[in-house]
Each structure stands twice: as C-alpha cells, then as structure tokens.
C-alpha cells in the first residue's frame, strides 16, 4: 500500500474517507456532539425536577414556546427525557463508543491495513450521520420530538391522540432508528469479518488484546439483536401508518373507539427488550475491554486471568440474550416465566463478579501510573460495582415489583451502564488520543476533569437510589401532586447541584479535547509504553497503517514486568512488544 499513493482530495480524506482511522475520528466527534446535546438536556430536566415551581431563563431560551415563562411543559419534559435516553444509549454509547474504538483499534491491534471493507465502513458512518441529523431535526418540529420514553412502548408511541410527540416526532424517531440500525449492522459485520480474517501472522485469537475480544463479541451481540429491534420498529410503523394491529387492541382514546383488534403491546415489549437488554452489554462490553487494557498498561502488570476474562465476556454475551424478560416482571407475564428470567438474570452476576475481582487483582502489586485514563478506569470499576450490586435487587422478580420503574432503576442503570460506559469511553479517549491525533491531551485539565466528574457521578446517582426507595416513579414531570414526596425536595436539589457540577466539568474536557487536537504536546510513538501493535505504527497517520511489512506477532498482549529466571526484567524494560520473538529461556505465557 505504501508504495502507491492515491491522490487524496479534501473530500476523500476528511469527508467520505474509507480509512478506518479517519472514520473512527468522525464517529468520536459526532458522538461527542450528541453527548453534549444529550447531557445538556439532562441539565434542563434536572432543573425542572429540583425546582418544579421556579422559572429559568435558560429553559425559555432553549425550549422556546415549550418553555414559555421559563417553565417547561410536561410534554417537553417527556421529550427531553426520551431524547436524552435515545441519544445517550444509541448515539453516544453504541455508535460513539463502539464506532470510535472498534474502528480505531481493530485494524491497529490485530495488525491489519484497514477494515475488511473500507467502503462499507464509510457507508456505516454516513448512515449514522444521517440518522443523527434526522433525530436532531425532530427537535425542531411543531408537535415536538418523540416523548413516549426511550423505550417507545405502544400504544402511547402509536397514537398521536395520546401524546403530542407521537405524531411526526415519533415518525422521525423511527426513521432515524431504522437507519441507525442499518448503520450499526454494517459496522458490526465489518468488525466481525475483520477480526476473523485479517489478523496478522501469529495473532492467534488467544493473543488478542481484551479490547478486541470485547469489540468482537459486542459486534456479534449487535448482529443477533439489532435486527429484532428493526422488525419491532417496522411493525410499529405498520400500526401507525397502515392500520395493522400488531400491538394495538381495544383502544378508546380522545372520545372514540379505534378499529384495532387482537394485537398486544406486550409483543412489542418482548421484541424491544430482546434487543434492549443485549444493548446494555453492547454498551458496556467495549468499555470493559478498554478498561481491561488501560488497567493492565498502567499497572505495568498483565491483566489478571486473561482466559477467565474471555470466558466471562462470552458468557455475559450469551446470557444477555436470555434475560430480557426481567424488564417485564410486572407486565402480567406468567409467573413461571418470571422465575426463569430471575434465574438467568442473577446468573449474569457471576461473570460480572469474576471480571471485577480480576480487575482489582490486576492493580494489586502493580506500579500504578495515575494518568487520566487510569483514573477513569479505576472510576469505572468503582461505579460498575456500585451500580451492578443493585442489579441483584432489580433482577429478582419479587423485589422488582416495588422498585420497578422508580428512580431506583434510574440510579442503577445510570451507574452500571451510563456512568461506567462513559468513564470507559473517556478513558479510551485519553489513552488513545495520541494515536488518533499524534498529540497528548493536557494532564492537569485531565485530572481536574476526572475528579469533578467522579464526585458529580456519585453525588447524582447514589442519593437517587433513596428517591426510588421512597417510591417516586420515573418520568414524573413534577412530584408536587403527591404530598408524600414533598420531603424529597432536598435530595432532588442536591442531585441537581451535583449534576450541574458534572455538566460544567465536561466543558473542561471539551476544552482539553478540541485544543489538544492542534495545540497539544507532540506525542511520541509509544507514550504509555504499551505492548500492543497500534503503538508500533508511525505517529503521523498513513494509509495502510504500517509503512513496510505488517509486523508479525510472537506473544500475547500483556507481557508487562515479566522477569527472567534471575528475577530481572527482560532487557531492563517493564514491557515487551507483541512483535518481539520469544527469547531464549523465556516461557510464553
């Protein structure tokens, strides 16, 4: 590749690029923009929750007529929580996270010139871009964006008579998501094919870094489950537009009986959560992979229990496809079915516990380099445990009854997949920024960013459990209609203050990220002294990644602080690149 240069124009290099590194940056920037929008929405609705009776000029400024007088309408409140959830789960933590790091790291870490199909990869990004544009366009329409919750349960999402956002807003939501699913399927197929076929010589599956294992398994879950969401969305489009009754039956709304007969909204819930639950693992597994890598590199130790880690990734992936019913314990499903889902759900705690213990053992007796990526990774383990533990309550059908759809659930999933996955993603950005842009991000801003973010994350989501245990349902525009929730005002104010601190802290990240792209310190080839292949490529990006031959791999990815029989470090270095052949007297791990 290096010997013949394509002539690249601005458009082929920066816009319709087929180079995985550029596509990765496109995903990242788009993801960050969507994250800023979704995060800002949460600031607005947190203001409403904490101060339901006060007015804010910022609400009027951004919400216009739906925020007249500085107080948002209930419809707009529901729109904000719906779009916040949709953007965060799909656009930031699926496309932004997987799209960025799978694209960047799969070819670089397995030793490939590019993705199996650069063209499909490009299409995948531009479909994602298109779906983002459509989703954002829905914010500006007359009847307001979709507001039936990010889970868009029919009949609410099917009937414009029932809620204003189920008109054009929901149509745009569905169109956007259908395109999004196409994009993520193209991406996932590409990742799978690339990992299976384009590994360099010596890169056995058992020598892959855990990042690649995580991305690979994530892609498989995506291919299995996303098509089901697509079919759910298509059937909903049919019900909305062509009068079919897949999900609707016996409905009387706005003063008239509708013609629908024989459908069941529960069918939609099954289809939705058949994707929806694997989706949380689509979100968290890549973050787990990233964190495993960063913890090992910065502890200067091999990841503990490499094989156990792979087995747990695979078992989590497998189990994730047979637990969706735990979202539906109180839908009237057969109690026996509930028992089965309780059983499978609680089983997931086992591989999750194994992973957590392995991470902790990885840092044990390490020589921990406390850079920003490492701090976020430690933060990830902490929030993953805090959030994961309450999953034992929610996954237990009997206990779920009284906390189902309360703020307890919100606290749980924000910690275990929201905050954790964001931490993993940010850690990844700090760690691979030198690889993406050839420059370093500012350290001091990074530290400040981490400490403020970590404090804010716990400050918002830990007290939130108690709001849920007090019985407050989610998606309530205001709780002033219920005197029994009057005493929650203090907690809500506290959480909102922490949320604003957390929101402002992200400005530090944005400053650091965007200025470091052009003004950051020039990075060296292997700034973190890591063993994986991406650090053997030149700092300046070239098409095809390696100027000469693709390197050959001789060992696994975690030879940190390995010593010879005399207890000395091999060649006096505490890391050995994967490209270094096994030395005399050295045992391959």
């Amino acid at each position, binding site marked *: 590749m290096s010997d013949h240069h394509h002539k690249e124009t601005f458009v082929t290099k920066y816009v319709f690029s087929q180079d995985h590194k550029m596509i990765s940056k496109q995903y990242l920037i788009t993801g960050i923009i969507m994250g800023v929008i979704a995060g800002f929405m949460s600031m607005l609705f947190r203001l409403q929750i904490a101060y339901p009776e006060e007015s804010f000029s910022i609400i009027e400024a951004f919400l216009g007529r739906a925020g007249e007088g500085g107080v948002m309408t209930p419809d707009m409140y529901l729109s904000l929580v719906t779009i916040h959830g949709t953007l965060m789960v799909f656009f930031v933590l699926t496309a932004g996270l997987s799209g960025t790091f799978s694209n960047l790291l799969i070819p670089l870490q397995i030793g490939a010139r590019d993705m199996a199909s650069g063209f499909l990869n490009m299409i995948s990004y531009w479909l994602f871009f298109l779906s983002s544009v459509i989703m954002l366009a829905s914010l500006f329409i007359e009847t307001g964006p979709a507001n039936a919750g990010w889970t868009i349960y029919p009949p609410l999402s099917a009937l414009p008579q029932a*809620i204003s956002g189920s008109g054009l807003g929901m149509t745009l939501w569905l169109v956007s998501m259908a395109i999004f699913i196409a994009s993520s399927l193209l991406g996932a197929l590409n990742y799978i094919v690339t990992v299976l076929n384009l590994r360099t010589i010596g890169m056995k599956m058992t020598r892959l870094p855990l990042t690649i294992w995580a991305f690979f398994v994530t892609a498989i879950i995506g291919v299995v489950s996303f098509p089901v969401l697509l079919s759910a969305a298509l059937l909903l489009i049919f019900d909305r537009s062509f009068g079919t009754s897949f999900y609707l039956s*016996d*409905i009387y709304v706005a003063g008239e009986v509708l013609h629908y007969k024989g459908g069941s909204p529960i069918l939609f819930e099954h289809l939705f959560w058949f994707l929806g639950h694997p989706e949380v693992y689509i979100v968290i597994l890549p973050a787990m992979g990233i964190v495993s890598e960063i913890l090992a590199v910065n502890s200067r130790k091999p990841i503990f229990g490499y094989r156990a880690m792979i087995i747990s990734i695979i078992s989590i992936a497998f189990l994730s496809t047979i637990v969706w019913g735990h979202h539906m314990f109180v839908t009237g499903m057969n109690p026996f079915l509930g028992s089965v889902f309780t059983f499978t759900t609680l089983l997931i705690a086992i591989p999750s516990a194994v992973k957590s213990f392995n991470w902790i053992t990885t840092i044990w007796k390490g020589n921990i380099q406390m850079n920003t990526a490492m701090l976020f990774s430690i933060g990830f383990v902490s929030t993953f445990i*805090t959030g994961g533990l309450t999953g034992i*309550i929610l996954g237990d059908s009997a206990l779920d009854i009284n906390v189902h759809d309360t703020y307890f659930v919100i606290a749980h999933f924000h910690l275990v997949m929201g905050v954790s996955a964001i931490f993993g993603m940010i850690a990844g950005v700090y760690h691979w920024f030198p690889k993406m842009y050839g420059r370093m991000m500012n*350290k001091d801003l990074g530290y400040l960013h981490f400490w403020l973010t970590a404090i804010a994350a716990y400050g918002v989501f*830990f007290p939130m459990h108690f709001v849920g245990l007090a019985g407050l349902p989610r998606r309530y525009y205001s709780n002033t209609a219920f005197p029994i929730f009057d005493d929650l005002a203090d907690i809500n104010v506290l959480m909102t203050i922490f949320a604003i601190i957390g929101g402002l802290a992200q400005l530090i990240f944005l400053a650091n990220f965007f200025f470091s792209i052009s003004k950051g310190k020039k990075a060296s080839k292997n700034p973190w002294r890591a063993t994986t292949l991406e650090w053997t490529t030149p700092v300046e990006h070239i098409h095809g990644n390696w100027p000469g031959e693709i390197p050959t791999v001789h060992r696994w990815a975690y030879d940190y602080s390995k010593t010879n029989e005399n207890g000395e470090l091999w060649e006096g270095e505490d890391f050995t690149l994967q490209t270094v052949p096994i030395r005399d007297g050295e045992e391959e791990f």
Partner: protein
Amino acid sequence: MKALFYIIIFVIIIVGIWQFVKLLGLTKVENQTATEKENNINGWLLLVFMGFVYGLMIYSLIGYKDTLLPQLSASAEGHHIDILFKLTMGLILVVQFIIQFVLFFFAFKYRGINNRKAYFFADSHKLETIWTVIPTVVLSGLIIYGLWTWNEIMDSSDSENPLIIELYAKQFQWEARYAGQDNELGNANVRFIKGVNTMGVDFSDKNASDDIPLAVAEGKFVKELHLPKDRKVIFKLRSQDVLHSAFMPHFRAQMNCVPGMVTELAFTPSVTTAEMRLNDDTKAKFEHINALRKEKGKEAVEFDYLLLCNKICGASHYNMQLKIIVDEQADFNKWLATQKTFAQINK
C-alpha cells in the same frame, strides 16, 4: 436568539479554560505519562475520594431514612418482600463497603514509584475458582429464596372468598368496580363506552348488574378506593387507551394495565389506614413533610395509601392517582352496602 447567547458563553468558557491553563504554563509539560509526584497526589486523592463515597453512602443511609416508605408493609405478601429485600440489601451493602475499600486501597497503596517493579502475576486457578464459586453459592441462595418469595406472592389460587375489584386505567385517572354480590365482574369492552358507562361495561351480561362502580362520596372531591383489612383482594386490571401501571408502593404491589387484556394482581391488606397513621415511620415522615409544607405556607396533610400510575402514559402521567382507604372488615362492609350497583344506577 437567547439560546445563541448561552451557547456563546459556553464556548467562551471552553476557550477561557484552555487560555488559563496556557497562561499558567501547564501546556508545556514535558513528560507524557504521569510523574511520580502526580501518582502520589492522585493516589492520595483516590483515598480521599473513597472517604467521599463512604461519607455519601453513610449520609444517605442515615439522613434519608425518614423519606423512605414506611418499613411496615401494608400487605401480608409485602412482608415476604421486605424480608428478602432487607437480606439482599444487607448483603449488597457489606459487599459494597468491602470491595470499594479493596479497590481504592490497592490503587492508593500501589501508586507508581519510579524504579519499583510490578509483580508479574497473570493467572491463578485457585483464585479464579474462589471467586467463581463464592458468588455462585451466594447467588444460588438468593435465587432460591427469591423464587420461593415470588411464588408466595403471585399464587392467589388458595385464597378463600377473595374480594374482586376491577381497576380501570385511562388518561389520566383511575376508575374501579367492585364485583358485587356474585363476586364476579360483568364483561366489559371499550366498544360499550357511552355516556355514563365510562368503563365500557356490557350491561347485557347478567354478572354486571350487581357490580358497584366506585363513585365520589358526598362531600369529597376525589374518589377513594376502600379495601378491607385481612381479606385477600384480587385486582383485575384493564386499560382504556395506553399502558398504565397500578403501583401501590405501601402494599409492595405493582402490575401493568394493558389495553386489550386483563392482568391480575392480588394482596391482603394487613394494616388499616388508621393504624398506619400511628406507625412510627409514618409519623416521622409526615412530621417532616408538614414542617416543610408549613415553611411554604401549604396546609398540613395526613398519611394516605396511594395508587400511582407508574408507566409513562402521557402529559399528565405525573398526576394520575387514586386514594386508597383500608378499613376494618365491618366498616368496609358497611361502606360497600351504601354504594350503588349498576342495576340501581341504571334504573
């Protein structure tokens, strides 16, 4: 246009942050990964952060205790849930306190020092086995106990003479219907909705005539659903338009209302409203609430059981409620006798 103004402010802050850092000369840092000094500072900060997390947990556990639902479950079935909940929560808290400590302590203790060698420790079958087996055993216990509890709650087949009530959800209010003398609900469908027949009851069904729709009592503004103490109540749930969820947190009970189908929920109220008002948790909570309300110039309130909607159902989802009163059986029967059946209403 004001939005643009805000956006410009945010951008200025972002630019300002970078300029400020540049001014301090912090953009010229030479070494790339963290220095020994930074490892040390961040290591200590991790310890401080652990203190923050622990402080927050303890503060929340103690400070927010009064805001929780009364510890006393208002239903016999809820009692089982409470035991399981306390057991699980206790276990979770112990694990949480220990594991977080181990994580932060290791991170602090092994913060990087130049020239120190990390310990190459890549695998241990013994350790892996230990932390696969221990969670498995603990979870097996929880699963078995959880499933036993689940079956206890969900199985209402053996109850004698249960009271049957239909709860009917619609945007944004609850209606209800007692099954009457024959304890059987007459058929209903949205296609029968007309005029006063707001629940779509099929009056040609012989079971319907003795059914008692819940009405607003004289001198009251809102409907009050009366339930008898110590008698099993089986709720049949229907919805008129979209998904709703009947959530009765004090009874530890919840079930969705699904258009096109009838779902079921059952429990035995075990504490009357009057008794619950005298409960210590309830008193503490309402003293607090009334003190807060007084500050805001609102009238004082008394404890009442509530039915809330807990599935997003539209713009006024946040105010879809029904007051529940649990009476002694004799009082309940007296009350029910004063209510009109459909036959009496339609006369």
